[in-house]
Each structure stands twice: as structure tokens, then as C-alpha cells.
């Protein structure tokens, strides 16, 4: 399971550290197991911690960021695009 979680999160943890990581992970899950024992029947789920209600914006244009500023903070740019390591084939 720890391998699956690391893969999904795209985290690289060296082999020798995985056992310790797995122990920490198990403790987190134990805490959740405690929560799971609570009787919450009759309670509405909290869907959002936000107190905002139906905050909608009007369909109006706001200025975009300047492209130079946007690409400045990217590790790499080319011809106005973000340049990233080659990834072929969509993942969606």
C-alpha cells in the first residue's frame, strides 16, 4: 500500500527509508480508524470549511498576468510556452 500511495503522489522515497515511512503512515491510518468509530449518524457532513455561501463572480474579464512574469517563475520556457520534460500520451 505504501508503494501505491507513493506512486500516486509521485514521491520518491529511497528503499531504506520506506519501512519508517510505512510505520508513520500506519499510525496516521490508526488515528483515522479512531475517528471512524465515532457515531456520526444524524450529523450532516461538513462539505466545506468555508462560510462563504454561493459566492459567484460575474462573467467579466480581468487582466491576465504578463506572460514574461509568468514564464520568469517557470524553470524553463520556450517560444512563449512552458517547457517541460517530454511527456507523450495524455494521462487523462
Amino acid at each position, binding site marked *: 500500500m505504501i508503494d501505491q500511495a507513493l506512486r500516486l503522489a509521485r514521491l520518491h522515497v529511497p528503499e531504506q527509508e520506506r519501512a519508517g515511512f510505512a510505520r508513520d503512515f500506519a499510525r496516521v491510518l490508526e488515528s483515522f480508524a479512531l475517528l471512524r468509530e465515532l457515531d456520526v449518524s444524524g450529523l450532516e457532513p461538513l462539505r466545506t470549511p468555508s462560510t462563504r455561501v454561493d459566492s459567484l463572480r460575474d462573467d467579466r474579464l480581468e487582466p491576465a498576468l504578463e506572460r514574461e512574469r509568468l514564464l520568469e517563475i517557470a524553470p524553463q520556457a520556450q517560444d512563449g510556452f*512552458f517547457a517541460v520534460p517530454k511527456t507523450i500520451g495524455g494521462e*487523462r
Partner: protein
Amino acid sequence: MSASKPVPDGWQVVIGLETHCQLATTSKLFCGCANQFGAPPNTQVCAVCSGQPGALPMLNREALELGLRAALALGARVPPRSKFDRKHYFYCDLPKGYQISQYDEPMCTGGGIALANGKFVRLARIHLEEDAGKAIHDRGASSLVDLNRAGVPLIEAVTEPDLSTPQEAHEYLVALKEILQFAGVSECDMEKGSLRCDVNVSVQREGGARGVKVEIKNLNSFANVVAALEHEIARQIELIGAGGAVQQETRLFDADARATRTMRTKEDAHDYRYFPDPDLPPVTLAPDHVELIRTRLPELPAARRARYVAALGLSEYDARLLTQSRASSDWFEAALRHVDAPKELANWLNNEVAALFSEPGAQVRSLDELPFKPFDLAELVELARQGRVTRAGARTILRAMLERPSGPRELMRALGLEASADAAQLERWCREALVGREKIIADVRAGQDKALGALIGPVLKLAGGKADPLAVREMLLRLIGAP
């Protein structure tokens, strides 16, 4: 579209469709960047849609309205509350590492589309979500990312697996596109990617257990949907027929090779780790607000077609042609306000005007590009109805209307095409043509109607294009005294 191979006897095909459609808003779903196709890369990007830390999304009211309009036009139910969830995956076109979508409380459920064969294709759901950016892989050593599209509002309409043939899938998509266009929800321009489609397909032996489902992505035209389905159905049947088993997987359609290839198998199927997006409050909708949107829906294509047939007396065929787009349907109705002859008007639009669009080198390809107004065509049709101009003459005038900014009446005079309204003149031409053609006259009297053709030509020649062939025919028959 060519008729495709039917599903072979003894096999059943189960198809479901997922269609993404970009909403025609001014700005993006959660920020004020422009929702516009074709801008230079990364010029419509802000802190929100580029996924900068701390940037907060805020829902676009118009996107919600358009989504609801789509839902109601498709007969869906709108629950009083929906919410947004984060769908996680890693890809370079998704700056936040998750897409804001709707998981277990979508904007609406149910609804569907009726096909001509009576089948009702049910929709499981329609939800709102943001589009991803665009990655380009064929320009050098790196992949290049443009985030202009990131955050553009989408609706995703998911059908139940109710479709049984590629043709049904095609018909559903055409109808869906029409409804979304008529409702003003989206341009549905597949070339610009504002309508995109994924399909799920499985095959099974008649009466057998449900087959294993394969998903095909990357379908950017209706023709490709049909081609991909045909190919995939044949592939699966051949595989099972040879004793093999279909693998649950996602395949990509290669339009050039007209074949599908594996993209990922079940083992690397995604775990999207959905959870409620804490940045966005749930959306609550007052029932009377939903009702208001419903009452404001324009008349949809199926309803228009039914009205054209029932109230205007048009054929199903003509009604269908006229409602292919909202623009053509509106154009027809605008012209109809000026001439009380729906059938003639429909004939003119679907035959003479349509012929202009399909000519090689045509400058004009749709009604909204015509240099004249619906009123002008109505006037031309009226002139032809009154016999002021022959059908051939009216065609010449129509052509001239493309070139010159004059009304049909002026063009008729300018081109000398005013038909002789004078029956006496027509009779003189006909009598002249009859001279010396006793053999033909005898044939016509003997009931050989075909022989009449040999007389009509000479009369038209004498009249120099100012006589209506139908009127000539009647006059000739009267003069000959044929049975």
C-alpha cells in the same frame, strides 16, 4: 457519412459516450481570464488558472447558468445542491495537480435524447468542470505547455450504456450538438476543440454475459467516433472469436491509421483520489431560479421540426434541413415573416440557395454569410409565386443577388427577366412553335405526354427565357386539345 458495417449477427454491442463541451462564456470557470480560442500561448493566464499557491477560485455565474441551460434543454433534473471536487492526476497540462470537477453531487442527473428509431438514450449526469491546458510534443526536445485553455468551463455529459451501433452514437452526437447550439450553450466547434468525445464500448454474444469495456479517447470528429467504434467493435469480435479475451483498457484512436492502440491498461487505471474542494462552497439553487432558466430556453430543434411539419406543412426532410443550425432556422423564420409560403420558401432555401453553398469555389457557405437579407429572398420567392419571373429567371436573379447589392425586383428589371404576364403573348409563342410539327401534335393527342417536351424547348427559345416552362406546357396542352 457512409453507411457503416452493421453489427454482425449473433453479437451485441454496448456503447456509452462521454462528451465534453466548452461553454460560451466570456471568462474562464473560476477566474477572469479570457475564454477565447487562438490567442498567443500563455496570454490568457492568471494566478488562479496557473495554479499559484494561495490563489482562490470563484465560480463564474454565467458558466453555471449555461450549464443549467444545457441540463434543462436535455431534460435533466437539477438538484437543489451540487458541489465541486478535486480530481487528482499528474500531467504537464494540469498546473494544480488536480482538476476541479464534480464527483458525487453533480450539477444535474438524468435527461436524455430520443433517437429516430424510438430509442431514448439516457444521460447519467451532466457536470461542470474546468478544462486542462494544452501540451505540444512535436517541437523539439521538450514538451511545450500553453495554459490558455486551463480553466475554460466545460460540461461533461455522460450517457448510460444505451447505444447499440456506431450509427446510433453518431445520431446522438448530432442531436446533442444541435441542442447545445440552439440553447446557446456552446459553439460546439470540433475543429477548435469546443466539443470532444470519449467512447466506451464492449461486445458480447447475443444473450451472453456483458463484455469487457474498452475506452477510446482522442476523438475529435463525429466521423472519427464512427470509424473508431467500427474498428474497435471488429477488433473485439475478432479477438473473442479467436478464443481470446478483451482486456479492460484505454485506447487512443489514430485518425491517420484509422485504428486504435493501447494507451493504458487496467493495472495503471487511475485512482483520482476525489475529495471535496475546500476552496469552493457548495452551489445551492433556488427552484424558482431553475424554473426561470427553463422558461427562457429557446425553442429546441426537435420542437421546431415538429412545428414546421404540423403548422407549416413542410416535409420531415425539409424541416430537418432547415433546423440543422439555429442560424439557418432563424433565417428561415425571418424570411417567412415576409412571404406567406413556407413550402416554397423551404424549397428555395434547401435547393437553390443550398446549391450555391456547395458549388466549387463558392464564396458563401452558410446563410449568415449571404450578402442579402431574409427579406430579399422572401421578395424573390413572392415574385416567382406570382409568376412575375420564371423559375429559371428567379435563379438568375438569386445569383445576381450574390454579386450586387440590389433587391430582387430591381435586378429582375435590370436583367430584363420580368416574365411575360401576358397570356396572349405566350399563346402567340406557342402557336408559332406548333407550326409544321403535326407529327408531334398527333403523338401528344394520342396520349404520349413525353412528345410534348419537343415542343416546350422551341417555345422557350422563342420567349428568350421569359416564359415559365410549366405555363408553356399548360398552354400547349390547351392549344393541342390533348386528352
